[in-house]
């Protein structure tokens, strides 16, 4: 595996593995996920340190938490960003918890000015 400034480079990992064509789709996806998790963690730490990125920066809101969970005691929750079951799916048992924040209204949308 290679590392650039402590960050895993998934493209390089795939190249060293012989290219994505030599990996199963699942293995390729796992590389993506691992890389993304590490990158998110690094960015989270950078953000908490007050640094700021340019085009490739992803704000802290880039975590896929379920609505209403942000202010909970386990706000980041370790691997919360890559937890698969955070989407409001209609499985019958995993319904959304009531959001603690209210959604902006259509009227508010019209108040946005540049």
């Amino acid at each position, binding site marked *: 595996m290679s590392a650039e400034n402590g960050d895993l480079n998934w493209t390089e990992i795939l190249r060293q593995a012989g290219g994505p064509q030599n990996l199963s789709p699942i293995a390729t996806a796992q590389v*993506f996920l691992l890389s993304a998790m590490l990158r998110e963690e690094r960015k989270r730490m950078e953000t908490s340190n007050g640094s700021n990125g340019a085009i490739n920066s*992803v704000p802290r809101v880039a975590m*896929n938490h379920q609505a*209403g969970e942000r202010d909970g005691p386990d706000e980041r929750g370790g691997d919360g960003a890559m937890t698969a079951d955070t989407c409001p799916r209609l499985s019958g048992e995993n319904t959304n918890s009531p959001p603690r924040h209210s*959604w902006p209204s259509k009227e508010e949308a019209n108040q946005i000015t540049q």
Partner: protein
Amino acid sequence: MTKTHSRIIFSLNSKGGSGNTAAMVALADFLIRNLGLNPKLVDCDLANKTFGSLSHIFKGTPKLDVRTETGLDDLLAIAKPAELEEEKAGGSRIVLADFGGGNEEDTVRWFNEMYDGLVGHDISFLGIGLLTSNVATAKGIISWSAELRDRINYLIIRNHMAGSNFSYLFETEIGRKFFNVSNAPVIDMEKRAQNIQNELVNRGLSLRQAIDAPPDVAGPVLGTFAARVRMRGYVARLEEQFATVTATLVPDLAVPV
């Protein structure tokens, strides 16, 4: 019993020319080539009849008019065909729908009529909002979210095609309110050289397709060494962005369906 989870990904398009189709095309390439998935593509942008539409770039993609009373039922039928209801294989079935502008009212009405009835059918929705430096794109995203709320997940793509000033969403109280409640991930799509983007549209090619295309298909603009190098850069950086939100795109990344 493990049912197949269906994920419907659609664009929260309120304004044409914001790069919605370019983003959906790139996302389709990512899902297919990087994740090995087989998303069902649907072109719902009827205003874009030929050049650069999803059906122009991915041959065989059906066109679907969702601006009818039951138009979105057809999208649901693609996401959840009858055989999947009985299937035990698990995995994900992804539907990628490029909505044209002006679909908001019909989409919201459909959600109001159908959403509650979908409980128990293991289906979820992801709305992709393209944000440019044009304030209208932010208004559109907030307007969609005001109606759909937490019935869908959100992904915001900052398209730098016309500048990188997104302060009206990222530095306003309304924007903060949206991100607080939606937890929408944010990724970036960089500005592309105009001649390359125009030629991709004219020839009906995605970046990936153009890179792999023989000279006669790529043409004199896209077929040059410099253009291919440039396009490889676009693809690599965009794939890296998509990779950070894989779990949002495909919550059940399992056996491709």
